[in-house]
Each structure stands twice: as C-alpha cells, then as structure tokens.
C-alpha cells in the first residue's frame, strides 16, 4: 500500500522535533493496514500537533484547541465505518479534559494520539498539564507550583479500554499505532516526545531519559482488561433499533360544545403534590375536545413535592394572543403558598371572577364570588382537590361541562387511575 503522506505539503516541524517521527509512523501504520485516504479522517486541534491533518492525504478536520474529541465523536457517530484518528498535544489535553474523560467513559471507536512534549511549543514554551515541576519553561516559576498529571492513569480510571504509553523514538511505534487504530473502541496513546524548538533549549531530555522515565511509571501497554466492553456506536444502534417509532401528536377531535362564549382564564393555585399541573393538562385537553384554542403556563419550584405549584390556563374560541392572565374568570385556590405567589392579582378582580377556595386558605380582600369547599370534611384527599374543583366547574357549566371533563380524563389517564378519576367526578356534588 502506498504512503498517505501529502507530498505537496511535507512536514514543517523544527529540526529535531519528534513529531516528525510520529507523522511517519502513523503513515506506516495506515499503509500497513491498507487504509485508503478516503477511509480515514485525521482530526486535530491547535498547536504543533494541529499540523498533522495537513501532512496526510486523508479527510481532514482541524478545529478549536482542546475540542478535537468532540468533532471526532460527531463524525464517528455519523460515519461509523470511517477510521477516526485524533491528534492532540499536552496543551489540548489540558483544555479538553472533560472531553477526554467523556471519550474514555463512552468508548466510541476513536484513536487518540497525545503528542506529549511537556510544554506549549507554539506559543513559546509555557507549561502544560504534563510539565515536570523542576523544568525551566516559559511560565516562570508557575510550573513549580503544580503537579503534572499522568494521562494514562486518568484514562484508565475513566474507563478507557485501550491505553498505552510509549516514546516517539520506539522502534515499534508503527505497530503500536496500528494496534490502537484497529482496536474496536476508544484507544489512547500517550506518546512522549522532544520539543527541540523550546523544551530542550533549557531542559535535558533524550530518548534514553524518556525510556527510563516511562519504565518507572505504571504499566499501560494497550488493552485494559478491566475496561473491556462493547463499542459505543454499536451499542447505540443496538438499543435504539429496539425502540418503537413515535407518531407525531394529534388526533384529538372537537366533539363537544363550549359552555361559554368567549375567552376564559383559569388559575389553579396550590402546592406541590396536589396534581396542579395535571389538572391544568386536563383542563386544556377538555378545551381541545370542544375545539378551543388553549394555552397553559405552569410555575413551580425546582424541588419535588415542596413549594407552590401554579397552573394558568386560557381557553378561547378565538386565537389566543397574549398568553398571560390579567382577569381570570376562575381561580381555584387550594394552598396558601400558591395564593401568596399570585397575591397581586386579587385586588383588581370583581364579582365576575369565581373563586373556589379550600377551607383554611386565606385570600386577599377582593369583590369576587366565593365558593368555599371543605375538601377534608368531604373526605377528599389533597391530591384530588384540583380535579374535584374541575368537576365542580363542570357541574355548574362554568368554563367546561361534564362531557368535556370526562373526555379529557380519558386522554390523560389510563386503566385504574382513569376509573377512579371518573368515579370521583361522578360523585361530586355542589
């Protein structure tokens, strides 16, 4: 198989830079595998490692520093048969830490080559996440204060199933690259190298020192048995192919007559656990069964089963313009905290507003029409107060009627829940 090196754009690294060795080794690996240029993409980010994509006659994707793994994941999900090879320096590694962890955990079939040369070469040799504290680099004393990280240990503990440390000067680098590219899952090679342009100007680092240092580190020689598992893309296909197709929503037919002639605004003011939002849904669906336009806005705290819960519903035979409520025709006041959050609405109301008030709820002074209901004495559980209030409205043909309510219940509930809701509505008396 022929070389994939781009003869029109030969490598332009500084003399003595180990990146050139990795470039050639990668070419050899791809050639040995018989991969043609159109079956591979090299994804890079910024810095000297970011030049890699230009040296190869493959697909090329050059993006923002530290984010190469994000593009690679999107490409691989879209084109599962493509060999996706990502190069990154120790700079991109530091910036894209979250993406590295995600790639290890996800196990999508990508190959990440970290061209680790212990400093930011392109910007003047500043310290990176792998710079030893004793090194003299372009960040003054700052690297003396921080502990360098071991990306192989991190990748391993983050779940990467293939992790390898090696030297740019290793004679079997092409074979190691080939094994990693072939591995069906996320593979990472931490390739130690020499930045002749910056790092070794002030620090002693030789191929021999690299070998000696690597020998003293924990063993990461490829497959990580404890992390072996199915490749993400395959698993994704497998799980999603079992899912049932979802039809677009619709299908509610208008069959009942709206008992009102114009826009009706309803506020249900309660607390979490009183099925306020569900009752708002029911009221909306009731409106749909009469062919009405409806809107529903809900207001509740992010906590579950604590705090006020409010549903504001508009039912109208005309288009609903403004979706806020200024003059409700009905307020269902079931809990103090709900009423308190809408305190400002009451002062402007008159007798045309009906308030259904649960016993014990204090309402600001207003001229509204009041219907007091002692739900507790009636033996109704708190979670049913809102539904019973809707049943009361239906019985007096205010906003909805009983046909609309029952039809809505059938749209919202199923089986035993539906039966008990229908039964509850039936039993309600004024």
């Amino acid at each position: 198989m022929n070389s994939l090196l781009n003869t029109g754009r030969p490598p332009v690294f500084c003399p003595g830079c180990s990146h050139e060795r990795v470039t050639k080794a990668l070419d050899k690996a791809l050639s040995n595998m018989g991969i043609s240029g159109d079956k591979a993409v090299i994804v890079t980010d910024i810095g000297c490692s970011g030049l890699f994509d230009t040296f190869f006659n493959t697909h090329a994707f050059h993006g923002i520093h530290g984010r190469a793994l994000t593009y690679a994941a999107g490409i691989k999900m879209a084109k599962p048969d493509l060999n996706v090879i990502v190069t990154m320096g120790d700079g991109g590694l530091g910036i894209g830490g979250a993406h590295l962890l995600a790639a290890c955990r996800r196990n999508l079939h990508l190959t990440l080559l970290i061209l680790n040369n212990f400093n930011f070469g392109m910007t003047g040799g500043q310290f990176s996440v792998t710079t030893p504290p004793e090194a003299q680099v372009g960040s003054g004393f700052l690297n003396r204060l921080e502990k360098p990280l071991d990306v192989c240990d991190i990748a391993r503990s983050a779940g990467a199933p293939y992790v390898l440390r090696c030297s740019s000067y290793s004679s079997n680098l092409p074979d190691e690259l080939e094994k990693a590219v072939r591995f069906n899952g996320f593979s990472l090679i931490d390739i130690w190298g020499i930045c002749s342009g910056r790092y070794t100007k002030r620090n002693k680092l030789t191929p021999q020192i690299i070998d000696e240092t690597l020998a003293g580190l924990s063993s990461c020689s490829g497959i990580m048995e404890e992390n072996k598992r199915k490749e993400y893309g395959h698993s994704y296909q497998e799980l999603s192919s079992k899912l049932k197709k979802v039809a677009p929503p619709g299908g509610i037919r208008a069959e009942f007559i709206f008992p009102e002639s114009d826009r009706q605004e309803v506020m249900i003011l309660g607390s979490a656990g009183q099925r306020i939002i569900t009752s708002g849904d029911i009221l909306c669906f009731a409106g749909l069964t009469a062919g009405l336009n409806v809107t529903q806005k809900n207001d509740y705290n992010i906590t579950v089963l604590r705090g006020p819960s409010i549903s504001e519903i508009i039912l109208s035979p005309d288009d609903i313009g403004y979706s806020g409520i200024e003059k409700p025709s009905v307020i269902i006041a079931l809990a103090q905290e709900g009423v308190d959050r809408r305190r400002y609405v009451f002062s402007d109301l008159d007798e045309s507003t009906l308030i259904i008030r649960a016993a014990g709820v204090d309402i600001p002074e207003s001229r509204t029409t009041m219907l007091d209901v002692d739900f507790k004495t009636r033996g109704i559980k708190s979670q049913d107060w809102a539904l019973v209030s809707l049943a009361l409205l239906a019985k007096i043909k205010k906003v909805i009627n009983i046909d609309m309510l029952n039809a809505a219940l059938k749209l919202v509930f199923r089986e035993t829940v539906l039966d008990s809701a229908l039964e509850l509505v039936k039993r309600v008396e004024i």
Partner: protein
Amino acid sequence: MSLSLMEGNEAVAWGAMASGCGFFAGYPITPATTIFNTLLRIMPPAGGICLQGEDEIASIGYCIGASMAGLKSMTATSGPGISLYSEQISFAVGSEIPLVIVNVQRLGPSTGSATRGADGDINFMRWGNSGGLPVIVLAPVDIKDCFVLTMHAFNLAEEFRCPVFLASNKEIAMTKESINLDAVEKPRIIDRIQSKEENFLPFAVKEGSMVPEFLPIGSKTLVRQTSSTHGEDGYITTDSGIISQFQNRLKNKLESAIDSFSFHDSFIEENADTLIITYGVTGRAAKVVINEQKKAGRPVSLLILKTLWPVPENLIREQAKNAKNVLVFEMNMGQYVHEIERILPDKKVKFFGQMDGRLITPRQIMEAISNE
C-alpha cells in the same frame, strides 16, 4: 380538525424531525431541556442520533462534526450555554458549517433566573462570535412558529452553510398550546448542494453563487475542514487578497439574500401614525392591542419581525414608510431598538422595555401608545 397540546420546545423538536434532522446533541438546561427530552424520545427510533454531551462545548462540537459528515444537526441551550458555545459558533461561521442552534432565552445576566423568560440575548447571538461576521437569527412568536421557523432554520442553514439561531424564549418554549399540526403550512425542504466536481475544492464557489458546494467528511473525494483562515482548498492561507474575498463572501452571502428570508407578520393600518415594532412573545400582546385600537377607531400599525439578523432593512423601511412614530417593544433593556433607530433616522423612535421575568402586557403597550 385534529388538535394536540404541546410546548413550544416540543414543537421545535417535531419541526426538526420534519426538516430531516439526523443529529442532535445538547446539555440539559432550563428552559431548553424539553427539546432534548422530546428528541431523545422520538429521534433514535426513527434512525437519528441524539446525544447528551459532557458539557455545552462538547454538545455543539458533536453537532459540528456530524454536520460536516453530512447530517443535518441541531443543538439547544439557553443564554449560559450560548456563552459556552461561542468559540464553536465562530468556527461554524468561518468554516461554513450548517447548524441550527436553539436559544431558549431566560432572564439574565449569567445564571440569572432559570424559569423566567426574557429576550436578553438578541445582540449576543448576533455579535457573540469572534470576527463579527453575520449569523441568521429567527424569532418565533408562538408554538406554530416554533415548528415552522425551525424548519426554515434548517433550510437556511443548508442553503447558506451557516449557523442559524432560533431565538425562543421560556414564555413560548415552556408554554403549552393547542396546535393542529396537519393544518400547518410547511416549507419545502432544502438540502445542501452536493458537489459533483471532479476536482473538488471544499471552499470554492461557482460563478454566480456565494455558497460553496458540499461533500461530507468520509465521502469518496477527500474533504478538508478547518477553523483557520483558509483558501478554496481548505489549507491555511496568509494571502490578504484571498482572505479579503473570503471575509466579504461570508458577509455578503447572508446580507445580500436577506430579502428572501425576511419573515414577519405585519398589520399596517392606512390611517395610523404609529407603528409598533416588536418580536417574539411580545408580538402576541401587541396584536391584542392593535385589534382593540382598531375597534375603538384609533388604528395603530404593527410589525412583528421573525427574522432579526441579518436586519431586514428593506422590509422595515417599507413597512414604516407611512408611520410618524415608531414604538419598539422588547423583553430586554433596549437592544434591537438601536437597529430600528439606525434604519429609520427620520422617524421618532421610542423604546419600551422590561426585563424582570414578566411578560409585557397589552395594558402596558396601550399606555405607551396613549402617551404618543
């Protein structure tokens, strides 16, 4: 009539499906989360891919990769997420990557209020990229717009190869509303033009066109994609002549075509001196007001803009030509009004804004008009 009840966010999700969206990635954030929830439910069973990224930067990065590999892609977030998207948006602008970005705006600045609406990111969406080149921003008014404008957003992203924002708002996104999807008039679907050139150059444009034809990463022909300043071949260039041509093309490909996608609703009254200009959910309150004013024999005109960027200058001039006073209403402290002032230097332009989590009410609009 076949009605359903859904949130604006659900309508965006179904609009994406109707547009042929094949890839979504997002990170949960109120009030945008239900777009992700809905797509996760409906997209994978239909053969699409829906991912939850490790953060916002990753989510949009996945979309960029998938888009350049040929899938129509969308992401959704709110203001704090747009901040994180910024570097990737710049990439999508400069490298002509088709992408739909839904910004369900919430009250800012910063973390702000997760469950309160605002239109506070209008200028941020336009100017929040390095280089300052134009993007497209569409603003829905209601649930129907959430569906239809999402489809237009995909079409525009494909046609012009650029990021397109849908500037939604919590007040539309999380409000449930009745809709008859069967009765909604849907735009014809547009797909990016696949190149048939033997000597494909990823950023070359044909005579008479300002948008490069496309081939996906992974096609038989090799494709180069880069975030760096590049020539037609996708390799870095330092040639200022090529750079200048390229920057001008990125600007002109959108700005010169704006008349073809100046979406709006307008209600121009012949004898009205006053024109209301607004956008987003505030358009609903404004419509109530002009209807009441008409009934009362004091007609007022209304222009609801649904394309905000690039600024539809010809449309605004045309609609405002008979107006003496122009009132701009925004759910922010005054952003788009500056564009209106710039375009209509001979009109008396007044601004009314509110950014406290509440909707601008018809009553407030009425008061502002009666002060004219």
